[in-house]
């Protein structure tokens, strides 16, 4: 047996390498780098999908409603970026997490000497950032199509980040807590719910009462309100109740996802 061909670490290297593991923050950044690089190959496709989403909601809805009045136009123009922003978190994030669970990579990652919350922090960072280019595209498409005047609020950027984070957290929690196949099915349904049956691109008064009541407790309407009032600060306001609702959803989702990551079979 030829020993020389084997990469042998000397004792000192082994001792040093086997010492304390990377600090939690460093581990989080390295994990985020791992996930981002793994997603990088899909980024062009992701951007194309986001462009389609933006065009579908802006141009497609424009076709449906004809020549909209200014308020309707503003709803449509601000709805497009919301939809591209939150479908990444609510649809694509759970699909990726469900896939990672099915193919076993999540279980392997869980054998690494890294705190459980670091996985969540890394993944949420990645998915929060991935959603942003689509949102910007959505804003431009909306403004170009409907010639609306936007009045951005000073908190637009942090607001959009918060919406992206909460939707990614909700998606992550959904995919972590539910069986992967169920999570996949829900994401399919969510595409239509967000596109058509949520008060994102139109006011909630148009929906039947029972749907309005449901949206009083779901996180989608508050998310739309953040983006809408963030982009058209002069026309729309952000109700305090919606802020609280969004925070509650965000915290509950993070707690649920963290619990799922800690869970042992």
């Amino acid at each position, binding site marked *: 047996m030829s020993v020389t061909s084997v990469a042998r670490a000397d004792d000192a290297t082994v001792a040093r390498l086997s010492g304390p593991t990377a600090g939690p923050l460093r581990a989080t950044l390295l994990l985020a780098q791992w996930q981002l690089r793994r997603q990088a*190959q899909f980024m062009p496709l992701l951007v194309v999908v986001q462009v389609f989403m933006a065009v579908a909601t802006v141009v497609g809805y424009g076709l449906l409603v004809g020549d909209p009045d200014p308020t309707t136009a503003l709803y449509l123009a601000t709805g497009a970026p919301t939809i591209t922003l939150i479908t990444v978190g609510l649809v694509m994030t759970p699909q990726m997490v469900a896939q990672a669970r099915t193919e076993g990579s999540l279980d*392997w990652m869980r054998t690494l000497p890294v705190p459980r919350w670091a996985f969540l922090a890394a993944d949420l960072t990645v998915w929060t950032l991935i959603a942003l280019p689509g949102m910007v595209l959505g804003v431009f498409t909306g403004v170009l199509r409907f010639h609306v005047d936007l009045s951005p609020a000073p908190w637009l950027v942090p607001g959009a980040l918060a919406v992206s984070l909460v939707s990614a957290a909700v998606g992550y929690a959904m995919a972590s807590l539910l069986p992967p196949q169920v999570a996949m099915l829900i994401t399919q349904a969510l595409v239509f719910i967000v596109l058509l049956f949520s008060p994102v691109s139109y006011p909630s008064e148009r929906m039947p009462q029972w749907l309005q009541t449901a949206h009083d407790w779901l996180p989608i309407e508050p998310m739309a309100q953040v983006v809408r009032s963030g982009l058209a600060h002069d026309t729309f306001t952000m109700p305090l109740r919606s802020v609280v609702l969004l925070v509650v959803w965000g915290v509950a989702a993070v707690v649920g996802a963290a619990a799922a990551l800690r869970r042992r079979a």
Partner: protein
Amino acid sequence: MATAMLSIRGLRKTYRGRNGARANDGIDLDVAPGTVVGLLGHNGAGKTTLVNQVVGIVRPDEGTIRVDGVDAVARPDLARALVSVQAQANVPITGLTPRRAVELVGRIRGGELAEVRARTAALLESLDLMQWADTPAQKVSGGVARLTAFAMTTVVPGRLVVLDEPTNDVDPVRRRLLWQHIRSLADDGAAVLLVTHNVREAERVVDHLAVLDQGRVVAAGTPADLAADVRGSLSVELDLANGWREFPAALGDVAVIGQRAVAQVAAADAAAVVAWAQENVESGHLERYALVPASLEDVYVQLVGPERTATVGDDDGPAAADESSTGGTATGGAATGATGSAATGSTATGRAATGQPSTGRAATGQPSTEQEDPR
């Protein structure tokens, strides 16, 4: 093993909803620093369940797991800092290159950038992976992915290294390099728990073996201890010409599967059996024959029973270089090597070329009744 790095006592785990099947049913196991302990067992014997409990992915129902004295059931986070694991399923690393993946894991495991880079390059070099080091992972073969996973596990090895089927999909030449690495991990001081059903190759590397069947350790000891019963006995393998089934009394119980027959013979009868077999090759009753020392694999098959062992021989022979020697006759070395396990490797060669690698071996130790292919 006074100071075990991994010490498992009375480990029990029953999964809910799977007919209450006990995956682990009272397992005791120790792995000392500097040793390789092989955990053998067929699919579903409870090997992966055992591994998953050590790193806190599965919670035991009963029993204790200590890693370097740390209670791994109560503090899986502390245990994980001491353990590195190569999972049974390949970790998907699409989007990354082997080099990038190994380096990132090394740094996540706490290695410094320069050291991790150097060690990654050395590992990829010595596993003969340099030509794929910077190829996107979606373009590399299963064997390269498997070796990359091994490098990811050992670039910054834990004090306990758990390898779950590391040789799957790996070609024979690189598999030899892999076995050397596994051995040197232990020689460098790590405790290595090697989960495998590649019995033939593992027996040359491991210091101790535990055979798992239906969640229980049914045998444990050094390879020599376990093989003691069959020492001095030989295994004869015959490829039968169509329909021919006449065996001499010296063969005892013959297990026949399709065109292949396997039997045990005493070393004293070996010469007579060779003469008989050679005669029948010449007369066209036998396509080929081989006489090999009864190995640990034969013991293993006897222990866990033949029905579920179709995977045992999944290996395609120890080395490509040996495949050229697969002729119609047993070599003299095969017979004389009966008492030395060193001969096992070079005499196992015929099966790679036969095209039915697992069935004949699975039948070893069966009564002489004919049986269908267990698969």
